[in-house]
């Protein structure tokens, strides 16, 4: 009866003696290990290259509701304050002018294209994700800035502030590029939601109010204090860094953003009534 020690020695001797099974097993290990590691790694990082459209906007505007409406195709379901971003996969027809209700069906005619619609939390503390994705997200095709047209009067300052941040981030994205190759255009749709409500402002009024408020914000920011962490040396070279639109211009208009390859459209609609086809078409055209 061999002791375990002897067994072990025997075993090691067998492995170290060159023979066909040992070669075969060794070769298998050499070939398979890298493959397994590769599979292992790729599994954990899903390969996403779908074009995406990001929903941003102040809380309570109806971002998540729009998301659910577009996904379900019949009606939006009730929603609450979001804490984490949520993306959904949608298909849009390439060659036909379909409403979102038709597009959501499996048997919708025409050629299809898939894209991700990303909902972001609107709460002030959680805007990081939205702002990061504006700058860093690959395949970003458009941004839908949702706002509540019914309560815009009260929330004008807060809404415009957020919009200012978004537009400024996009502007910096374009202007900060040093190479001749300009980054692809990212367009912004300002979706004035809740047009079903009595107090809702029409798109034209939303536009003029926002432009006026953005102009005021721009002005007061230019006079404001520097942010901590900005050294004295940085001040001189980046004179117009935080100025949205055409530098030095008296009034702000969305048209000024074209200089930075940004097109801003304002369209009204209503999630609760399902009147979102105009937004849907805007999105499909950008993909």
């Amino acid at each position, binding site marked *: 009866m061999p002791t375990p020690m002897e067994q072990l020695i025997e075993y090691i001797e067998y492995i170290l003696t060159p023979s066909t099974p040992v070669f075969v097993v060794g070769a298998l290990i050499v070939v398979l290990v890298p493959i397994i590691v590769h599979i292992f790694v790729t599994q954990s990082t899903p390969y996403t290259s779908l074009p995406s459209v990001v929903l941003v906007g102040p809380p309570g505007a109806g971002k998540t509701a729009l998301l659910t409406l577009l*996904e379900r195709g019949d009606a939006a*379901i009730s929603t609450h304050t*979001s804490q984490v971003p949520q993306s959904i996969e949608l298909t849009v027809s390439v060659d036909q002018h379909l409403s979102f209700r038709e597009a959501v069906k499996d048997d919708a005619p025409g050629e299809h294209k898939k894209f991700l619609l990303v909902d972001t939390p609107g709460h*002030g*503390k959680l805007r990081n994700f939205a702002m990061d994705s504006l700058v860093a997200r690959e395949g970003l095709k458009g941004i839908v800035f949702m706002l509540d047209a019914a309560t815009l009067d009260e929330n004008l300052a807060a809404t415009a502030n957020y919009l200012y941040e978004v537009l400024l981030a996009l502007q910096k994205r374009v202007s900060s590029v040093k190479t001749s190759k300009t980054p692809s255009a990212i367009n912004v749709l300002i979706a004035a939601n809740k047009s079903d409500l009595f107090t809702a402002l029409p798109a034209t009024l939303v536009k003029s109010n926002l432009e006026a408020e953005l102009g005021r914000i721009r002005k007061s920011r230019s006079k404001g204090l520097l942010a*901590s962490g900005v050294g004295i040396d940085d001040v001189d070279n980046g004179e117009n860094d935080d100025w949205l639109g055409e530098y030095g211009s008296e009034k702000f208009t969305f048209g000024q953003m074209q200089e930075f390859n940004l097109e801003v459209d304002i369209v009204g609609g209503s999630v609760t009534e399902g009147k979102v086809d105009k937004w849907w078409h805007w999105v499909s055209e950008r993909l």
Partner: protein
Amino acid sequence: MLDTFEILTTSGVVLWSRSYAQVSPSIINNFITDVFIEEKGGAIAGAKNNQSAAQNPPYKADQHTLKWTFVKELGIIFVAVYRSLLHLSWVDKLVDNLKTIFVDLYGDQLKKPNTTLVHCHKFDGYFDQQLRELESTTATKGAPAPAFALETDETISGNLGDEPPFPPGLKHRSAKTQDGAHDLPSTVESTPIATPTSSRPSTPGDAEGFCPYVIGRRVFRQEKKAPKKGRKWDADGFADEEDDVQLDYSAAPNSITSDSEVEGRSTVIDSVDSSTWGTKTSKGQFVLRDLDDEVHDILASAQSKSSTTTKSGLVGSGLSTINSLFRNVVGGKTLTKEDLAKPMDGMKEHLIKKNVAPEAAVRLRDSVEKELLGVKTGSFESIDTRIKKAMEVCLTKMLTPTSSLDLLRDIELVTRPSGFSSQKARPYVMSIVGVNGVGKSTNLSKICYFLLQNKMRVLVVAGDTFRSGAVEQLKVHVRNLKELTEREGGQVEIFEKGYGGDAATVARDAVRSATSEGYDVVLIDTAGRRHNDQRLMSNLEKFAKLANPDKILMVGEALVGNDSVAQARNFNASFGQGRTLDGFIISKCDTVGDMVGTLVSIVHATNVPVLFVGVGQHYSDIRNFSVRWAVEKLLNSS
């Protein structure tokens, strides 16, 4: 009675809801904001994963109480809303049980990426069953502790001896067929008749069918759902036996007469059960019963799962160690509490070295740990980098204010209200409070300088009527500022009433005179006070009432250590009901280098944002607070 029960995801989508009374959606929105996003109300009131609803502090909003629980890995929240007046003791149990059931049934659907669709319309049935069961327990017994399915299970198995663990319903039925007649009388006797006095004693037919059946079913169901039984069996009762049914089934002789029937009956049921689960004969009933059993199964298995710890052999543990080492390098490792313990403590130490108060550091550690438990690391990502990333997110979330502040814009809204609003133009009042020697007057002058550069008319009020030289000090500041800003078009005056007066009245007079003379901004300096001196702090309440400032800013030193938490808390609470600080100015940031932990400590203590930081000795050395800058400094490990 319950008002609303909702199951929602962290992304805000309501997956399932049942509403009995109109509840404003803002209640749940506020609940989410306060508990999950802003983490108000104490250190880690925030969402502890998978904790029972009883341990989560109930959230109270006017007239309503919310009981909730949260499953992190699936990102779903369960909320029950009811009127605060009603003391519904079973709501905790309901929330917990429904959580278990929902996770068991629909957990897989929730894990799918890129969709919000969860098909859970069948959940209605489960909800109804649970609600009925729990409501009835409290209704019949009036006892605070709702009977749980498991407990009754145990009594049964004890009664019948060596029975393999079947699902509750099955077990009972099989027991009946085996030793039916002998067992029955005793069981009947042993059961205290919890006859559904509370359930409707509706038709005689009801009672008829009820009786013989009850004998069989009673053992299992007695405690749980008395009211249901009556309704459940009436159809059968009608069909089979019309005569000689005793309502008095407590007496032994009677039960003997019905024994044979019962035996026959139970075999009938058995055959029905084994062949068809909820078809043909009395379809509705059997479907219902299935649901009950299924629910109890789910709850029981969840219970046993949580009680048994997974033990693996030597080989298993060895393999898992190798696997975890491998994962540690390659990434894709699922983080456990043990993995996190050491690096997390390291992170805590690091924060404390940065002058973060231990209390705040512990909170940050806990919330990062909460965030990371069960998370998979990315490819080629070590635990440390992952923790750093999570800490960055946590700090950013903590320090970012809920609404961004633009002081100039705020002032403009008050001093030059738009034509639509009904408000009259008035000066914007700011006051500055703080402990002795933190730099209140200096920071007031800095803000004043900034406002003057924006061509505003500022009135500086010497509210420190106590310390020698305080008024003169402000006078010197104002004189300097006048000279400095003459060219720019600002205008500044001082309002002082000498020493010994009441600061609150001085402030009120100053605001009045500023209103009549058309100043844009009133800046009120106050005397420094020790935050734990009750006598001095109580003056602040009167001050807040009389001067009624638009903004109360507290100056905190970056140099101060652990005391910052208490300072911020005490000042925040000293302005009376419904008035808190509006922001902090952190002074002397230039003297501490990277150790800006005070920022974190005070925001942790009060949830009030930092507005400005003082970065030098000159009038111009004041900066807007930038979250990114602070987070960078805090995590910088050089």
